[in-house]
Structures are given as structure tokens and as C-alpha cells.
């Protein structure tokens, strides 16, 4: 356990000094600052006003940015460390591979989740100071959603890092994964449905297998519980899960995907060449 914490701490310290982290923090802090600056808390959309309006916008933007940010920065730094000889040296120290791998994930998780959460927390604190009503239920669920989103894409990133032997390959693979998930949000699904080659249930199942779509739908469900904007797909989803059931599924499924990917990554890492 001591080795795990030491490795996690090491990764946190290394990341805090990395340029990607500074940009990452700036992006999410900047989003919240800009949303306040543009007076989003004063506007009303679909009945949303105040901080809930800001949180809805923030989570939508985060869903667009966080996955690609986590994928690229994680595979870049892990594969980069391997290429630069960091693994060769640090893995010559008496640290177990489990402590190393999971410690690295833990440290990285803290580093990627903290700025995203801190930006949202900062918005809440500002709202409290400014006397704006805070939707605590929404804040809690969005926090959980962000936590799971970070875990899901971190797990996938660590799997890619374990498989790819060079930074270029790792980056290319990460980008490809993100692009595939992105295309399956709408373009490909719509395409196959229009062609009528698959049953609507299959298309919806495919969509729900995509963590990006799961997050998107869960975020929508908070301000549109009947998922009216999704059209007929909403019937399948709500029939299958119900509103609460889907909210739970949106947290559990991506977490399982992330954990499964990380576990597979660990087994591949343990069985292969380390540096």
C-alpha cells in the first residue's frame, strides 16, 4: 500500500509540473470564468436560470473536452515516460508492478479530476457568495458524472498506453478511439438507421454502449427527464431503465468500462516488457 501511495504521489508531482496540466487547469478554470463573465447565470434557457444554467453548459463543454484531453495527455505522458527511460529507472526500484500501475492511475485520476471539479466547485462557491441559489442535487450528480467520465477515459488511456510501444502510436490510437466514439454519437448511428439496416433497438443499444453517448444522455436527462430532445430513442431508454435507473446506469456502466479497460491494461503491462 505504501508503494501505491508513493507512486501515486510521484505521478501527481510529475503531472503538476507538466505543461499539459497547466493548460488543462487553465481550460476548465477558464470555461467557468468565461461562463460567469458572459452572464450565463443571468440568462434563461428552457426554464434554466442561475447556477443550474451554468452547470448544464459547463457539463456539456466538459463532455466535449475532457475525454480527448484525458486520452491524449495520459497516453502521451505514459508512453513518453517509457520512451525517455523514466520507466527503466523507476521500475529498477523495488516497487511491485501492481503498485506502480494502479498508483499511477490513482495519481493521474487525482490530477485530471481535481481541476474539473475545482472549477465547478469554484462556481458553486461564487454562487453562494453572490447569493445565487445552488442546485445541490444537480451539483452532486454532475460531480459523480464527471468523476466517472474521468475514470472511464483514464482506464481506456491506460489500456492504450499498455498496448502501444511508442508515443506516436499511442497518440494515434487514442485519437482514433475518441473519433470512433464521437462518430458513433450521431453520424454512423443515424446513417445505419436511415439505411434501415438495423432495428431501432439495436441502434439504441449501440448508442448506449458508447460512454460518450451515455454521458450526453445523462446530462440531458437532468434538465429534460423525459428525454424529449432525443425523440423516439427516449422511449427505448426510459422503458428499459426508467429515469432513476438510467441515472444509475450512466454512472455504473462507464465506471465498469474504465475499470475493465484498466484491468486489461494492467494484465498486458504485467506480462510484457516494461520499459
Amino acid at each position, binding site marked *: 500500500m505504501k508503494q501505491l501511495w*508513493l507512486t501515486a504521489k*510521484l505521478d501527481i508531482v510529475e503531472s503538476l509540473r507538466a505543461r499539459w496540466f497547466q493548460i488543462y487547469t487553465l481550460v476548465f478554470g477558464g470555461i467557468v470564468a468565461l461562463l460567469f463573465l458572459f452572464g450565463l447565470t443571468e440568462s434563461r434557457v428552457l426554464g434554466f436560470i442561475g447556477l443550474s444554467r451554468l452547470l448544464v453548459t459547463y457539463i456539456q463543454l466538459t463532455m466535449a473536452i475532457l475525454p480527448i484531453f484525458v486520452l491524449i495527455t495520459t497516453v502521451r505522458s505514459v508512453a513518453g515516460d517509457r520512451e*525517455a527511460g*523514466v520507466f527503466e529507472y523507476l521500475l529498477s526500484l523495488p*516497487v*511491485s508492478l501492481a503498485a506502480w500501475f494502479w498508483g499511477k492511475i490513482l495519481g493521474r485520476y487525482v490530477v485530471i479530476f481535481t481541476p474539473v471539479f475545482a472549477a465547478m466547485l469554484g462556481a458553486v462557491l461564487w454562487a453562494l457568495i453572490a447569493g445565487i441559489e445552488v442546485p445541490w442535487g444537480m451539483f452532486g450528480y454532475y460531480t459523480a458524472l464527471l468523476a466517472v467520465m474521468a475514470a472511464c477515459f483514464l482506464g481506456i488511456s491506460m489500456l492504450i498506453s499498455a498496448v502501444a510501444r511508442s508515443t506516436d502510436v499511442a497518440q494515434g490510437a487514442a485519437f482514433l478511439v475518441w473519433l470512433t466514439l464521437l462518430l458513433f454519437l450521431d453520424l454512423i448511428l443515424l446513417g445505419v438507421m436511415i439505411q434501415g439496416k438495423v432495428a431501432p433497438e439495436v441502434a439504441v443499444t449501440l448508442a448506449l454502449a458508447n460512454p460518450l453517448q451515455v454521458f450526453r444522455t445523462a446530462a440531458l436527462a437532468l434538465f429534460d427527464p423525459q428525454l424529449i430532445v432525443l425523440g423516439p430513442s427516449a422511449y427505448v431508454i426510459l422503458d428499459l431503465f426508467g429515469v432513476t435507473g438510467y441515472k444509475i446506469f450512466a454512472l455504473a456502466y462507464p465506471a465498469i468500462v474504465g475499470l475493465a479497460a484498466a484491468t486489461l491494461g494492467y494484465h498486458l503491462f504485467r506480462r510484457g516488457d516494461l520499459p
Partner: protein
Amino acid sequence: MIKFQNVVKTFRRARVLDGIDLEIGLGERVALIGSNGAGKTTLIRCLLGEYTHDGLVTIEGRSPRTERTAVLGGIGFVPQLPPPLKMPVGQLIHFAASLCGSDPQRMVALARRLGLDVDGVSSRQFVRLSGGMKQKLLIAIALGRDARVLVMDEPAANLDPEARKIFFELLAERAESATMLISSHRINEVSTLVNRVIELDMGKVVLDDRVADDVSLSGRLDCRIVVKRPEPAFAKAMTGWNFTDRGGGLEWTGDVAGPDRLRFIGMTSRYVALISDISLKETDQKVGADEATALQGGRAKDALLAVADGGTAN
């Protein structure tokens, strides 16, 4: 103590280690030499449990791959290229000491002995240190624990003469209690440190010779050099070796670490036309021979001669 049994490592279709069989005992100081791509780094990585391979690698009967923590706790490693770690020096020392169950102060003390002011660079990122400072710190971390095996890749390459002297003394202190595996492209870098030479070529052991253990790791040579005329380049070189100018740049005196004699002679050979008188005298009682390391066995001797001639052993 260290055993390689029919170790084979293949990257895709390239066989980098081709049936390595070696046994290295306690107290042996082994030079692992060979040209680029000979398999030195791969062999070291197999020894550190970092590479999967066919065959068997054991240290005191245990596998560094399956019993990592226990085995690596007894290995001190100095890589050829320092890793680009962004963490501060102080934290790196504490990280390594915590994992190795060692006292960080022991590592700090060793770094100080090597001439690294740890307090002055404690908060500086490791990657921002100079090459020599990094090397000193990595040596201090490797030696600042109870390692029974020391694996070093070109360990003295970036050290100044004074730090090399201390480094040789530190190795001398561990000579009886540790096995050392020192990797180098060139035998002249390590010949005086070792009592066995193993040369790899195309993944095979092509030379395995014992070396006369005549050069004391802690020995010193009193040196006096007289030159025909003052020469700035020569003066700069001598100052680099901490020699003292005894008069107008014509007479220089100083001492040279015993294991550094070949490197020193190599340096002076560049000014052979300028030098009118040179003397090297052992000051360590343990050492009797004046010659550079006497290698036993034909090929090892040839390799050393090639180095003395300015060539590279391969």
C-alpha cells in the same frame, strides 16, 4: 549469485540475446562491454526484471521478474541516460529511500561526498540538473542502500576527476560485499574497476576473462609532469584534473585515482610532443604494479592494447 541460463530475448524477429549462459559470484566486478546493439542494455534489463525473456535469470536463486520487490531491494542501478524526471531532487531521494527502506540521509551524505550540494539543489527539478549532478545523485541513490548487486551503465562518464576519485573509493568500500556489473562501450572506461570482462557481440558472449585484480579502487598515483613550454590547452586540461601549476605552466603536480590512470594517460597522450618529463608513482601500499590493468587472456589484452592505441574495443 547471479545466474543467466540460456537467456534468449527476441524483439519481433531480431534475436538480441542469443542463449546467454553466465554465472557471476559475490564480490566479482564485471565489465560488460560491447558495441552498440551488442545486447548489453537488454541483458541488464533482463537482470532487472524489466524484460520478458526465454531462459532463466536469477539473483540468489530468485527471479527478478516474479519476486520484484524482494530482488530489486538488493540491486542498485545507475542508468547511462538519466531519466527526465520533473520531481525535485529532495523528493526523488525520499521516494527512492522509501521504496528501498533506506535512510534518505545516507543517500544525501553520499551525494555530498561526491561533491553534490544537495541542500542547494533540493528543490530543483531533477531534469534541470547538469549531467554530472544527475550522475552523482543517481550514484548516491544506488549506493545509499544495502545493495548486494550494483548495476551501472557508464557510471563515471559524466563525472569530473575529483568526483571519479570519490566514486572509486565508494566502490572500494563495497568491493567485498557487493557484486558489480559495469556496462560500457569502451573497456578503457572500466578496465581498472573490474576483475572480470565479459564482451557481448550480436547477443552472444564472445569473451569472458578474469582480470588481474592489481589496481586498488581506492589507490592513488602521485603525478608530476614537466612540459617544454606553457600551453593554454594543456593548462586547462591539467586544471580539470585538479593539478597544481608549480611554475609558469611548465611543471604540474597532482594525484590521480588508481582506476583513472588509463583515462589520465589517454589525456596526456594528446600532448605527448609537449611533455618532456612525466612520472606516476603509486601511493597505495596495496598496489605493486606500475602498469595499467593487466588483463589475463589474449583477447582481453588485445582489447586493452587497442584502447591504449586510441581505438575502441569491440
